[in-house]
């Protein structure tokens, strides 16, 4: 099953932003204060550039494995794919923790058993056994759903937001900017998520630019969301980790009709379910493909990866803050370094392939 360019754009514009609405805003507020929008915008622009470069690679319509194998042979390509999968599994941890914390708060009135989150892995196991490229139709549905959800939340929240709280511009200084930039790194790996999709969609003229613009549009929505988030919570922003589920409840209609905003919140949470499973799905996909037996290998790999993720999550159950700090603060550099490094390798592979073709 092949993806279409439209489905890819839908993912970049309206599915990828779903992963940035839970812990990221409060993390940014904690690191960059009222200047939270600047590091966020910087990340979005950088990631959009990476998305552009990844989509440009799609012109060859070859998979990551095939591209690297052309340059350095099958064994090394397999190793590279395993490395990419390891990175994606690492990247999956923050969304998984977010999902776990979100489930506890959003879906329950009292603290549930910590295994209440476990059924997610059944869905994830099912999803991961399917190739990432088969998600196109899903993105066709999720994109409008996310747009409706986010629009609803933003409309409900805008009345209680004081955008003046974003002043003074630059109040946190360069130090705040860098802290925010580093602290938010672990939420930006969308370009790497696209790598397993290479070779599974036909390249159309201008797709790279369109994809990057779609990512920027989605990022713009996240920036607007964060601006309103800070406007609503201001000094309390650092202590509001489930931003999108909290912002809309101050709308006056909510008092009269009950929590009607849950319609929008659940829409976003629904999209988030799929986004959370995506890094693991991408990891399974890239390994299964490297070993050229996707159908046979994917279910077993999916079960193994999800079981490992679940076990790791249980192990870190009581130290979520420490875990997030480890991933997003101490080892933040892994994300930009890997995304850019992998792209360099792929472009080198591309150049080598071109040279070889010219020589022939």
């Amino acid at each position, binding site marked *: 099953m092949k993806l279409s360019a439209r489905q890819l754009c839908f993912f970049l514009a309206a599915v990828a932003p779903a992963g940035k609405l839970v812990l990221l805003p409060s993390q940014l507020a904690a690191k960059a204060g009222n200047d939270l929008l600047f590091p966020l915008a910087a990340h979005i622009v950088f990631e959009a550039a990476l998305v552009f470069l990844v989509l440009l690679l799609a012109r060859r319509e070859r998979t990551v494995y095939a591209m690297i194998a052309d340059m350095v042979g099958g064994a090394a390509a397999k190793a590279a794919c395993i490395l990419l999968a390891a990175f994606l599994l690492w990247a999956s941890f923050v969304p998984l923790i977010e999902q776990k914390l979100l489930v506890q*708060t959003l879906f329950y*009135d009292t603290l549930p*058993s910590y295994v209440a989150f476990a059924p997610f892995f059944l869905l994830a196991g099912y999803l991961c056994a399917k190739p990432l490229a088969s998600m196109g139709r899903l993105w066709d549905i999720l994109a409008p759903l996310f747009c409706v959800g986010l629009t609803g939340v933003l409309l409900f929240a805008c009345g209680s937001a004081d955008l003046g709280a974003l002043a003074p511009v630059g109040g946190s200084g360069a130090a705040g900017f860098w802290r925010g930039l580093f602290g938010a790194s672990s939420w930006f790996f969308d370009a790497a998520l696209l790598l397993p999709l290479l070779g599974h969609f036909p390249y159309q003229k201008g797709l790279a630019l369109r994809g990057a613009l779609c990512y920027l549009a989605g990022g713009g929505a996240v920036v607007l969301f964060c601006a309103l988030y800070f406007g609503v919570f201001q000094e309390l922003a650092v202590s509001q980790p489930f931003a999108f589920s909290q912002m809309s409840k101050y709308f006056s209609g909510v008092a009269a009709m009950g929590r009607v905003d849950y319609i929008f919140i659940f829409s976003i949470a629904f999209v988030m379910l799929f986004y959370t499973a995506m890094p693991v799905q991408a990891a399974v996909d890239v390994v299964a493909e490297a070993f050229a*037996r996707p159908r*046979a290998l994917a*279910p077993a790999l999916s079960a193994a990866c999800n079981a490992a993720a679940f076990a790791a999550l249980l192990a870190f159950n009581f130290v979520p803050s420490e875990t997030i700090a480890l991933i997003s603060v101490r080892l933040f550099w892994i994300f930009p370094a890997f995304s850019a490094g992998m792209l360099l390798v792929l472009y080198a592979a591309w150049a080598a392939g071109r040279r070889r073709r010219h020589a022939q």
Partner: protein
Amino acid sequence: MRNNGWLRRMPKRLWAVLAALLLFTFLSNDFGLVDLQKTAIVLAAGIDRSEEGFSVTAQIAVPKGSDRTTGGTSSVELTGTGGTVADCFSAIYAQTGWLPKLVFCDLLLLGEDAARAGAFGALDYFLRDEYAPDSCTLAVCEGSASALLRTASAVDDASSLALETLFSDAAKKAGRIRTTTLREFCITSYGASACGYMPYVRITDPGRQSADGAAGGGNAGGKGGKQADAAKEAVFDASQTALFSHGKMTGLATAQETFAMSLVYDRVYGGSLAAGGATLTVLKNDGGVSFPRDPAPAVQFSVKLSLALADRSAPAPPTSLAAGTVPPETVDAAKAEVTAHLAALWARCVQADCDLFLFRRTLFRHDRALYAQWKDRPLEDLPAYFTIEAESLR
């Protein structure tokens, strides 16, 4: 490809296991959670200082059963004491077996002692608890919060719901009450201005207060229902406003000062103003406060009013009854009245060191250098100017 028969058969087996698991969890019906039948729906919490630390009275809704021939909401008040608010709730849970669920808690009522000792000692729990809404209304009450919650109200069976009616939009529109939520209070209190306000609730006729308002102490004493036999039903008043500085209640604005505050901040429609021997209705207002920084920082209040004549103590010719226009001298008297109320409010804020009009926050946002100068400087150094314009309905 190798024959992966077991893999092909896996989905069916997996589905069977999943179905069994789902049925098991459904029938066991326990995910460490508490359902509605074992839950205490807390409508309001009253927090007082006690010898142990805190005393929390939770007003819990009592379902009326399927026979709903009568209106209103029955409630029961349970009190728990402990070193912290969390301890108090635990005490209630331990004594009754009802888990207090705060998701519907729409009112946090602080006893005056608790408010003067520092609101955040009482509010910290509600900020930390993920399941407590920060959209609940905050209020301070005269005397004990527990006593007030236990008072039978003339408006609703549950005193908290009577207070909710009192805090309704209609009262706010009339400019008589200024309410705040936990989130709003925390934002201003944790902000550069470190101030806040809450409506101050009292029972208008103390004689009507229930005989034993403070009963139900101990670790978790319960007292079912109001003392309806002993007490006449009370009426609450919240026209005064408690002023907070650095989380502590430091002053109390009068009803007139509260009205003046509403004229500055809110859209008042139908609020009444007594001036020049007449009662005027505020049909429209446009208020604001600014802080001119040149040549020196000052606070500038400006209010524009459209007034109509509602009543006058002196007899008037019938021709003037239909018009409702306000005589110029009454308009002038109204301007003077509003100026006086605003000046009194400003003086009260200065006295309470309550930066109610967010002067320091404005400097923080727009002039960091000036903010550094005024951060710890008393507000009395700040001159206040009042521009009040008023016109009669034509």
